[in-house]
């Protein structure tokens, strides 16, 4: 039987195609579980998981917490806003203090790229990266690819365009790795200032015209403009951005084929996509959220099964 090639989920970059397929196959079973009358299985009864969020999150934190609880693990939550981090404690100290309380797994979001890897090399627990700065957000990419697979049957050979703030997006980087490993073609689309300089080295196409990108693709993943990460102005105004890169119902209906619209959330309605697109049949935004729980259950289950007890 298969098992994951990694002990921690730091980034999609470290995963093999087999790992991703194993995660998806296991997620299929969990998707059935979360649609039962009693949405809970006892697999992780003796596992304790700490959710450490050094950066704001609603969807990801809830999704992880729900996934952990549906596997029957014990969960402790920590958010930086109300903690001793504000009093000057270092990351390692914070985590080691939490681990002395006998925690087996840590799900962490942190504003610094590489924080999850740093931690995995220094503490004795399984680490799941829930987003580290502008680096990776592996579970988001997994659930995005899982949602494409669910809707279109497979990811291989599909054309996916990622639109928006590629420069500041960990979702974009993880998605590029994940989709390419599964055999999809990836294009990024956005204003020149928001496309990283050396992005072509990852083997992705670059397009600055939204309509051309949409005509090319099967799936459009519309990213949020991350104003909180933009220290300087990358485009003249939000209004101008949304005129050039915002997806409207008129654009969607004017395309020569029907494409699928995804969004990792939170949506800025009227900026990257309009309300009627977000609520249309082609949008699978809410399915992504549902699949997020199943995919996270799968990741936690597979990593937890590598923890050995005497």
């Amino acid at each position, binding site marked *: 039987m298969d*098992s994951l090639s990694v002990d921690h989920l730091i980034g999609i970059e470290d995963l093999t195609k087999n790992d991703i397929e*194993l995660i998806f196959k296991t997620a299929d079973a969990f998707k059935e579980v979360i649609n*039962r*009358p009693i949405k809970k299985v006892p697999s992780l009864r003796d596992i304790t998981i700490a959710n450490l969020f050094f950066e704001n999150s609603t969807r990801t934190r809830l999704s992880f917490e729900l996934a952990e609880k549906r596997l029957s693990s014990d969960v402790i939550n920590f958010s930086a806003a109300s903690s001793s981090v504000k009093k000057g404690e270092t990351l390692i100290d914070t985590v080691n203090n939490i681990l002395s309380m006998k925690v087996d797994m840590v799900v962490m979001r942190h504003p610094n790229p590489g924080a999850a890897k740093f931690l995995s090399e220094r503490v004795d627990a399984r680490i799941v990266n829930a987003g580290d700065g502008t680096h990776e957000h592996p579970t988001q990419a997994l659930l995005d690819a899982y949602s494409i697979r669910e809707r279109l049957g497979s990811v291989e050979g599909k054309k996916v365009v990622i639109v928006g703030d590629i420069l500041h997006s960990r979702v974009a980087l993880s998605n590029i790795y994940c989709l390419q490993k599964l055999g999809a073609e990836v294009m990024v689309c956005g204003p020149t200032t928001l496309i990283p300089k050396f992005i072509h080295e990852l083997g992705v196409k670059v397009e600055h015209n939204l309509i051309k990108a949409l005509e090319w693709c099967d799936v459009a993943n519309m990213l949020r403009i991350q104003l909180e990460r933009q220290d300087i102005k990358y485009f003249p105004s939000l209004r101008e951005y949304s005129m050039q890169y915002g997806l409207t119902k008129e654009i969607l209906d004017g395309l020569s084929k029907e494409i699928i619209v995804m969004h990792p959330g939170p949506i800025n309605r009227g900026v990257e996509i309009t309300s009627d697109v977000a609520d249309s049949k082609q949008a699978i935004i809410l399915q992504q959220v549902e699949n997020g729980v199943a995919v996270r259950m799968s990741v936690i289950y597979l990593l*937890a099964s590598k923890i050995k007890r005497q």
Partner: protein
Amino acid sequence: MERQVILNSKHFELTINRLCYQLIENHNDFSETVLIGLQPRGINVVTRVKERLEEILGKEIVCGNLDITFYRDDFRRRETPLIPSATNIDFVIENKKVVLIDDVLYTGRTIRAGLDALLAFGRPSKVELLALIDRRFNRDLPIRADYVGKTVDTLVSERVSVEWEEIEGEDKVVLFTPEGNG
């Protein structure tokens, strides 16, 4: 490994037939009864029993598959993760009589997990167990089957394998004994 066929295809069919008539004795027309096979190998037994019951009764029998992977008690005591199979129960089991079905009843741990897993779908009025083969001396838990195809006395070192015409090419049950242990 020494091989010994303990149920050939002719006896196999007779056994399935007998199990079906025993089920009918207790469940009449199956209006309040559902059959649930335990993944992965129990579903082969369910398929066969369902076919035969439908022939005899001339009506459709409600069947499902139950995967018990997430309810097992040996999670993390193995080298590799347990990978689940599909669960498919698209009917209500509340107040129904459930017949759990597996191919080989051995330690009883699978059935224990199966009973737990079943609770996630509701509260059946009664649960019974049908096993094609009962290795009666190897039980770890206080569990017994209500319907048994064949009882065999085996050592822990031995292995019982149920083979199916649709998968392995022939219906039969084989007992494997390690050399020098017979």
